[in-house]
């Protein structure tokens, strides 16, 4: 058993969990499969955790010895891990499984991208610049933030779908089983706050790392600039929410805009622009 097999099992289990969660939503089968959905998701998360740990161990076997958080493949796997961990925390906290249909598919898509696309899956050695403990702090903090924003975006989609249908929701229909708009709005906001704090920590740890490696904590590198743009989008969202009382659809759209910015910061910058983070693209 090696780490790639475990990560493969994880990918398929997230697919299965996604189907279960969508089933809960569409067929209102929470009573029948609710526990199974949580069980398989949690099991996949544990297998994935072991897989990531094993990959770390394997890197030592290869004489490289580094945390499994350093290239596109590993970061996507960790992104999926963080989404599921954050989602399960939410499920436990607010005691509803319907949101899973809007969160776990993100994790599956991330894993599918990692497994089936052409990204390099090999455990490669680290360039000297990446050999720093700040690397772990930077990647972990950023991706916890990204995961919370991903779940917030899923919730916002749910909000927009439900609010578009408005008063025409038939009792007992699919949309009827979704939490009330007020509840979704509240969880979206809280997820964004959580993500914002971690993104802040992610930018800060990145700046401290850059300063210890190059002597400059901020160089307006495209990745840095885009992370700041993302930070501002969420800062604006929190301000309009807190000081101007925005809620509902407008916050949902801002949450989606923020997540697009996250995706561009994470993925788009590597492929469309050039800069310090170019190693993240292989």
């Amino acid at each position, binding site marked *: 058993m090696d780490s790639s097999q475990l990560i493969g099992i994880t990918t398929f289990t997230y697919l299965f969990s996604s189907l279960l969660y969508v089933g809960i939503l569409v067929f209102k089968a929470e009573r029948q499969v609710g526990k199974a959905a949580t069980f398989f998701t949690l099991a996949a998360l544990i297998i994935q955790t072991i897989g990531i740990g094993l990959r770390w161990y394997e890197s030592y076997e290869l004489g490289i010895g580094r945390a499994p958080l350093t290239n596109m493949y590993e970061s996507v796997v960790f992104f999926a891990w963080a989404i599921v961990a954050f989602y399960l925390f939410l499920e436990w906290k607010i005691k509803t499984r319907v949101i899973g249909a809007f969160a776990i598919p993100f994790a599956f898509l991330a894993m599918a991208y990692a497994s089936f696309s052409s990204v390099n899956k090999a455990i490669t*050695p680290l360039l*000297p610049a990446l050999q720093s403990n700040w690397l772990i702090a930077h990647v972990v903090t950023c991706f916890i933030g990204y995961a919370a924003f991903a779940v917030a975006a899923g919730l916002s989609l749910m909000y927009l779908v439900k609010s578009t249908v408005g008063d025409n929701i038939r009792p007992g229909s699919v949309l009827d089983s979704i939490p009330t708009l007020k509840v979704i709005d509240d969880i979206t906001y809280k997820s964004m706050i959580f993500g914002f704090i971690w993104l802040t*920590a992610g930018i*800060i740890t990145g700046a401290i790392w850059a300063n210890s490696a190059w002597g400059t904590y901020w160089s*307006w590198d495209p990745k840095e*600039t885009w992370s*700041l743009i993302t930070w501002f*989008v969420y800062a*604006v969202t929190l*301000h309009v929410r807190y000081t101007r009382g925005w809620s509902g659809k407008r916050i949902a759209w801002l949450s989606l805009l923020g997540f697009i910015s996250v995706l561009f910061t994470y993925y788009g910058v590597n492929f469309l622009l050039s800069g310090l983070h170019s190693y993240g693209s292989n």
Partner: protein
Amino acid sequence: MKDKNSVWSFFASVKLALFTLSAISITAIIGTVIPQNQKFGLYAQQYGDTAAQVIKVLDLHDMYGSWWFLGLLGLLSANIIICSIDRFPTAWKQMTTDQSGIAIAKIEKMALSHRIPAREKLSPDEVKTVLKNEGWKLTTKTSDDGTVIAGQKGNWSRMGVYLVHTSMLVIFIGAMIGHFFGFKASVFLPETRVTDKVYAAGHRSPIDLGFELRCDFFTIDFYDNGMAKKYVSGLTVLEDGKAPFSTEIAVNTPLKHNGITFYQASYEGYKDFVFKLTDPADGTVHTFIAPFQEQVEWKDKDIVFGVVNAEAFRDHVTRIKIWFKEGNSEPVEFWVDDNGIQEVASVSGAPYSLQAKQMYATGLQVAKDPGVWLVYLGFFMMLAGLYFSFFTSHKRVWIVTGQGREVLVAGSANKNKEGFEKNFTTLTDKLTDKLA
């Protein structure tokens, strides 16, 4: 601050903040798309003359340092300062005012309130003990209408937002101090050479270090697949009146001296070789630079030597073939690994120890940033402020006793009201147990 004019309220407004944050976000994109700090001709080539002219006029080739972008950052700072001055006194009052002075009629009307039927002749001390055990900070006021015990928790939560906003200013100030009183520079320092100057980033003007820096050696370790694993420079600081101080730096572990930091950034391999010959007579080490296939002389010893051949992987020499002749004896030729040591027989008997390696120059990034500690302080303040703002709340309770048989409990929180309701119920339950 009482006579608020329209200019003041403009600069204190959240609207301005939203405008500035959005404007910075949108314009910041430009600099990620247009390559920064290139030669003007390149823009003309890539975008055409007209567009290049626009780029020049609006400083888009260095947009993060342009007057209008710095203007936006300045506007944001002014906004933060004035908004904070505008709102801080109210928040400070809410945080520090003694809440026991509030009118009982007002307490009775609070949204979250609860009445507990209690024994006659209740002592406020009993109530206080329960509250104190729960961590409430208490003040008490007794009047003819009864005794008001006011408790509060987490009042510092109200400072969170000011801490976050101030942290941004602290970071800006730190960045400005770094910009005006520090420098970014670089230097290429070949092995065995000494420099007392580095060269400013961009305009390349020399900057005096105030001490001398010598590169003793530079080495690269490789992984099995040929990727660079570690770059190491041996550096010695030479300062008047002080003992020389040697250290090794690598990427992520810089050298700091007199507020100037040296970072391992790059290197350059030469076609020259560094020789270290140890004199068997007294053990002294003599250093020579030998260009490829050129003779070098050690006159005192009547020795001539040189590199006749070398093997390399990419631009890194792996083996060196050396030619060595002392006096009239037969010359010898031998291979050594790069940085390897070889003993060479001498006329006098005891052998010379010879060490040879390819000569490198280490590329050092040099920075002096007297503002960086403020930036780090700002980072810390920002995280602490965000924590206080979002994860703590200012909670208040009032308990009125002495109104006949009932005890009135009321409470409020400025954030997380659902969470506070749970706390409130637990508190009233405890009081009920104790008093009923």
